[in-house]
């Protein structure tokens, strides 16, 4: 009976598009923090979002571009289920992986959401239904893989909330919201998702594997190398590596002039082909090696002279 009441409440809240998503945990504390988002999954009791890339009904950007955008806001002291949960007020609320402090799982979208909380919710708060405005959480597809195949991409937002102490006790609410981006109908065509080979390298490899917190991002700048979008090409193309052993071999970070993958430190690192001492670790650091087709894609791009735009033959599949 209680569950039925909760379902009814959620459905009523969903009339305006965004529903209240309690996020899990004890129903007695689940109102401390909630999400507001257009939950659609599972259909019987929506508490997550699953959406095909480009589906205008749920993908905020409405475009087939390799990523879904989901509008999410956070509320504290929710009245969604007042019969079961009365918030004592919220003292503290944080989102996992929202700090750009070297956390390999750091997500700038989570940081943006946490910034909204800091700006728009004055903690401690006892204000009922005290909500942030919505932040777009981008969920990229996994891929494309050979044969224009993509796999679904996922993110999970996790929050930890502490209530104001009441009679010497402090309540706690941990919540999560699952966001899934599904491949678009038909093939996952790289030429529709990316502007060209280098754009594909930058977004499918660098953004996901390299320009992460504490590594080759603004904050970490490991090895003096920035691989963030917009600056990676100038940081790579025909640049002498800071690694002394690599520069002594005459290599470049990317040997565009020679159009030679073998004398490109980037490719050597990704291919774990580091024959001399002092050349450092294979990349991506601390992760599984890149799929072979992605390493081949980088080699083809370099051997075509590392062009900033356009498609190099063999890299658009």
């Amino acid at each position, binding site marked *: 009976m209680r569950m039925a009441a909760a379902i009814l409440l959620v459905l009523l809240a969903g009339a305006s598009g965004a529903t209240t998503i309690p996020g899990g945990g004890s129903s007695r504390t689940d109102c401390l923090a909630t999400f507001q988002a257009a939950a659609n999954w599972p259909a019987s009791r929506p508490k997550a979002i699953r959406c095909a890339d480009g589906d205008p009904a749920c993908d905020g950007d409405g475009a087939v571009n390799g*990523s879904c955008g989901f509008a999410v806001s956070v509320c504290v002291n929710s009245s969604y289920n007042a019969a079961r949960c009365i918030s004592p007020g919220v003292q503290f609320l944080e989102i996992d992986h929202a700090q750009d402090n070297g956390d390999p799982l750091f997500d700038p979208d989570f*940081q943006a959401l946490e*910034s909204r909380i*800091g*700006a728009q919710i004055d903690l401690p708060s006892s204000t009922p239904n005290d909500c942030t405005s919505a932040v777009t959480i981008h969920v990229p597809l996994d891929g494309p893989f050979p044969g224009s195949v993509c796999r679904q991409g996922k993110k999970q937002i996790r929050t930890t909330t502490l209530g104001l102490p009441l009679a010497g006790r402090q309540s706690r609410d941990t919540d999560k919201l699952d966001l899934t981006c599904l491949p678009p109908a038909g093939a996952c065509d790289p030429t529709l998702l990316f502007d060209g080979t280098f754009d594909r390298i930058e977004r499918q490899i660098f953004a996901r594997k390299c320009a992460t917190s504490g590594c080759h991002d*603004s*904050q970490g700048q490991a090895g003096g190398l920035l691989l963030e979008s917009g600056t990676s090409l100038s940081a790579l193309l025909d640049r002498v590596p800071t690694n002394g052993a690599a520069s002594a071999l005459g290599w470049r970070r990317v040997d565009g002039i020679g159009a030679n993958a073998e004398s490109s430190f980037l490719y050597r690192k990704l291919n774990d082909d580091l024959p001399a001492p002092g050349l450092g670790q294979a990349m991506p650091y601390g992760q599984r090696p890149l799929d072979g087709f992605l390493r081949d894609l980088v080699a083809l791009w370099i051997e075509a002279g590392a062009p900033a735009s356009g498609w190099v033959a063999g890299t658009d599949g």
Partner: protein
Amino acid sequence: MSMTRRQFFARSGVAAAGTLLGPGLFASPLVGQALASTIGDRWLVVLFLDGGNDGLNTVTPVSDGSHSHRADYDLNRGTGSGGINLSIAELAGTLVGNDPSTGAQLALHPGLAGLKALYDQGWLGVVQGCGYPAYSLSHELARMTWQTGNPQGESAGWVGRHLASSSGGYLPTDVPGVTIGQRVAPELRQSATSVLVVDQLESFGFPYDDLSAAAGDIAAKRLAFNRLYSSWAATDLQDTKRFLGESGAATLASSEIYPQLHDLYLANRPGWSEQYAALDRSTARGLREIAKIIHGNQQGVAGVDARFFQLTNGGYDTHSNQGGANVDGQHYDLHREVGDSLKVFYDDLADMGLADKVLTLVWSEFSRRIPQNQSGTDHGSQGPMFVIGEAVNGGIYGNHPNLAALDDQENTVYSQAPGLFRSTDFRDVYGTILKHWLGMSGELIASEMLVPDVAHPGGYWTVPNFDLGFLP
């Protein structure tokens, strides 16, 4: 009541907000006191935009001028989904002056309508292209550089060094500075005097209550602290111990006086309090606490002498979801908070008759990269600073950076070479304030406060200019 020595030191650290313990700056207290209070009947507020504010979407070119500023802007800042481009039409309501070197029309971000109003009043100085050579993209390193005023590393803050200098001349018995927040602002850190840390005056007080839950023993604890502080202050054998005693006593006294300022302000200025409250944002709340202290000082409340304030607004690390002119965007939201809060603050000060006595400096640890990413911007180099107050010579200072000649990291290039794009070193901004607002001599600033990069080759900050013109 028993208290261990360790507990006492820990408590002193919180309450006295003693910043950097050390006797080194006690050298000439009498000389210092004789030269003290060069800020006179004025106040200084420092507002830090934490995270790296996107300067290019804060002061934005609307036209090319004699260069290609607008065209370059449009090349780097996209439109459509995730785009953060501020169109000329969107900037029409927040136009300010022209770039001094190229004549390009400039505008503030639409969210900064409050600052635009202050600009129209002639109370806003926009200082473009502020940075330093060999910039850091690390939040921590860049923040430390700006907070200390020294890219080479320094433990004391740039305002703190003024407080401790022979020009500032403050003693351990003074309480000249207040941080609005949870801990002493690095800008105010030094070894000579106390800095209060105030979140809300209403709940501000000496933290007695964590040693014992027993009621009625506050007086005993207070007496114990006073005795300890007094006995330590009386010693002339150990400077550090004496500092703890004197600054602790001063802070304990302040912790009992300052909460009254909340009630005084509410009683005298309830309508103004409501205006801050209506904004419902932390910057407005922080500035209201500062207004309460200034009002108390103006009303002659004994023991209220703070002249230097610092507060922080976070959230500017807009790697994603930055937004353009959309009112729901993160950058718009932050700018609106800061602009509207400062407008209410200065309206309040003007009503007190003090708008020409309070100078506010707004800064961030870096700007953002010129080309945007999918929905935001990554860390960059130079950005604008703001100086605000009725005493300010309102206008545009410094040159807009050259967006057509970016460095290897796609950021604008710092240069001290004469020409259209000569950068403004942020130390020149500090130096102008130290000289023209705090009354320090240029020689003292350059020798003790902000030492030029003379050891470096050309291109560094070797010829300071502490007369940028935004202050008379």
